C-alpha cells in the first residue's frame, strides 16, 4: 500500500489520501449538480425551452423550507415535503403565466420571458425575504461527518447520490411506462399533433413543469443541507451549473443529465485539485467546458443528432 501511494504521488504530485478526498468531494458535488440537472433537462426535453428561472425556483424552495421550520415550527421532514409541493405549484404557475402565453411566439420571446421571470423571482425574494442570508435548518443525522482513514466524508455524501438514483429511476419509469409519460413524449415530439391526437397539451406541460420544479426542490433541499446558507441570488450559479451539466449529457436526456452532473462536479474539483494556482478561474472552467461541448458535440456526450426542422 505504502509503495502504491509513493508511485501514485510520483505520477500525480498528490498523495493518495488527498486524491481520494478530492474524488469524494467531486462525487458529492456532482450528485447535487445531477439532481438539479434532471429537472432542467426534463423541461427542456418537453418544451425545447431553457428555463432560466429553474435556479430561482430552486432558491424559492430553500426559503419555503426555512420558513416552514423557523416560523411555523414544523418538524424538518414536514417542512421539506411541504416546500417540495409548494415549489411544484410555483413551477406550474410560472409556466402558466410566463411561458404559456408565448407558446407560439418566437423562441427568443420565451427565452426573454424566462430571463424576466428569473429576475422577477430574485428581486421578489429580496423584497419578501430580505437581502441578508439566512441559515438553512440543519438536520444533524444527515450532516455529520464520518472518518474513513484519512478521508472525511459527510453522511450527506452517501444520501445525495442515493436520492439522485431513486429519482432517476422513478422518472425513467414515469416517462417510459405510464400514460402521463407517453403524453409527455408525444408533446415533446410535436405538441400540435399531440393535441390533435387527444393529448391534453396544457395539462401535460403543466405536469412536466410541476415535476421538473419538484426535482429542483429536492435538489435545493439537499443543497441547503450541504451548504446551509440561503440568499436571494443563491440559485443563479447552481442553475447555470445544472444547465451546463444537462448540456454535457445531451440536453433533454435524463440519464445524460446525471452523467453530465458527475462529470462537471468531479471535473471542477479535480482541476482545482491538480492546478491549485488556477483556483480563481474555477467558474470559468465550467463555461469553457460548456462552450467546448457546444462547439464540438452540441448534442452532448450521449445525445443523438437532431434533424433541422424546416
Amino acid at each position, binding site marked *: 500500500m505504502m509503495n502504491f501511494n509513493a508511485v501514485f504521488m510520483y505520477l500525480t504530485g498528490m498523495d493518495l489520501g488527498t486524491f481520494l478526498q478530492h474524488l469524494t468531494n467531486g462525487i458529492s458535488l456532482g450528485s447535487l449538480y445531477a439532481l438539479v440537472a434532471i429537472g432542467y433537462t426534463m423541461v427542456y426535453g418537453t418544451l425545447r*425551452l431553457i428555463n432560466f428561472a429553474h435556479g430561482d425556483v430552486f432558491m424559492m424552495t430553500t426559503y419555503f423550507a426555512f420558513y416552514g421550520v423557523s416560523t411555523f415550527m414544523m418538524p424538518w421532514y414536514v417542512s421539506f415535503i411541504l416546500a417540495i409541493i409548494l415549489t411544484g405549484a410555483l413551477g406550474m404557475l410560472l409556466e402558466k403565466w410566463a411561458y404559456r402565453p408565448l407558446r407560439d411566439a418566437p423562441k*427568443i420571446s420565451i427565452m*426573454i*420571458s424566462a430571463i424576466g*421571470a428569473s429576475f422577477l423571482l430574485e*428581486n421578489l425574494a429580496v423584497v419578501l425575504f430580505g437581502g441578508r442570508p439566512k441559515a438553512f435548518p440543519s438536520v444533524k443525522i444527515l450532516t455529520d461527518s464520518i472518518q474513513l482513514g484519512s478521508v472525511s466524508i459527510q453522511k450527506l455524501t452517501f444520501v445525495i447520490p442515493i436520492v439522485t438514483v431513486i429519482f432517476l429511476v422513478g422518472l425513467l419509469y414515469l416517462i417510459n411506462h405510464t400514460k402521463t409519460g407517453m403524453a409527455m413524449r408525444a408533446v415533446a415530439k410535436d405538441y400540435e399533433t399531440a393535441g390533435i391526437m387527444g393529448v391534453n397539451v396544457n395539462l401535460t406541460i403543466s405536469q412536466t413543469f410541476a415535476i421538473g420544479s419538484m426535482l429542483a426542490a429536492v435538489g435545493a433541499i439537499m443543497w441547503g443541507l450541504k451548504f446551509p446558507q440561503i440568499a436571494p441570488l443563491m440559485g443563479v450559479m447552481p442553475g447555470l451549473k445544472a444547465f451546463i451539466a444537462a448540456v454535457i449529457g445531451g440536453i433533454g436526456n435524463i440519464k445524460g443529465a446525471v452523467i453530465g452532473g458527475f462529470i462537471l462536479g468531479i471535473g471542477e474539483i479535480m482541476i482545482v485539485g491538480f492546478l491549485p494556482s488556477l483556483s480563481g478561474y474555477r467558474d470559468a472552467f465550467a463555461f469553457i467546458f460548456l462552450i467546448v461541448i457546444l*462547439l464540438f458535440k452540441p448534442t452532448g456526450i450521449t445525445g443523438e443528432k437532431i434533424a433541422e426542422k424546416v
Partner: protein
Amino acid sequence: MKQKKTLLTLIAILILFVFVFIADQTLDSYKMRILNLCAIYVILGLSMNLINGFTGLFSLGHAGFMAVGAYTTAILTMPDIVKTQNFFMTPMMKPLDTLHVPFFLALLAGGILAGVVGYLIGAPALRLRGDYLAIATLGFAEIIRVVFTNTQSITNGALGLKGIPVSTNIWWTFGLALVTVLIIGSLINSSYGRAFKAIREDEIAAESMGINLFKHKVIAFTIGAFFAGIGGGLLGSLLGTIDPLMFRFFLTFNVLLIIILGGMGSITGTIISAIIITIGGEALRFLDESMTIGSLVIPGISGMRMVVFSALLMIVVIFFNHGIMGTKEFTWDGLFAKFAKKPLAKGGNKQ
C-alpha cells in the same frame, strides 16, 4: 423631396446640438449625469439591437464586450502616477504602466479591441443557434470577467481601477450616440442590412438566396461588439472607476430590457426606450424610499424598483411583444403621411 428630407435631418441634428448646448450650460451635474447615461445606453442599446434585433442572433455577451472597452479605455488614459497608486499590490505590467494616448484614440482602441474579442468569440460561437448561442455568449462574458478578476498585473483584479480621467462629457456622449445612430442606420439600409434582416426572418431562405450566413453574422456581431466597447469605455470614463464585478449579467439585462421595450429591430425604438429606462429608473427611486401621505409613513421597500423593472420586461414580452416601435422606424415620410392624411406614396411607415 430627397433634398428636403436631408435638410430636415440636418435641422433635427442642429436642434439636438442646441439642446445639448443649453443643457450643458444650465443643468446641474446630477441631471447631466443622467443625460450622459441616456446617450451611453442609446449606444449600448443600438449595438445590442444590431446583433439581437436586426440580425436575430440572441446574444447575451454584452457585458463582456463592455468590460473590454472600459478597461482598454481606462488603462490607456490613466496618468502614470495614478496607475502606480492603483497598482499598489501587484505592479502593472510593462509597457502598460507608462502607456497613454488621447481620450478619443483610447476609446477607439477600446472599441476595436472589443470588436476583435467579438470576432474571436463570434467566429466559433455563431455556428450555434438560438438558445445555445445565448448561453454560449453568456458564458464568454463570464469568462472575460473571471479573467479580468485574475489578471492583476493588467486590470488590477478585484481592486478595480480608480481615478480614470473623467473625459466623458455631454458632447462626447451625444456626439458618439449620433455617430452610432448614423452608422448603424446606414448599415441597416445597405445591402448588408437587408441581408441581416433576411437572416433574422429565415436563415434557410436567406442562405438559399445566396447570402453568406456566417460572414454576415460575424460582421453584425463584430460591429455590435465594437459599439458595445465604445459604450463601455464611455461608461468607465463617466464613472471614473471600474471593477470586474460591474460587468455581471445584470448589465446585459439592463441593455436587453432597453431593446425589448423599444422593439427588437428599431433604431428609433431603442433611442426612445433607452431614454425612458434611464430616466424612469431614476424617477422610480421613490419606490425604494419611504413615502409620507399625510401623517401616514409607508416605509420604503428596497428593491421594489427592480421588481417593477423585471415585471415590466415580462409584461412587454408577453402582451406587447413588439415593444414601443416593433420593427418600425420614425421617418420623415411617415411624419408627412401623418399630416397629409394621404395614402402612403413612398416606403416609410408601411409595415
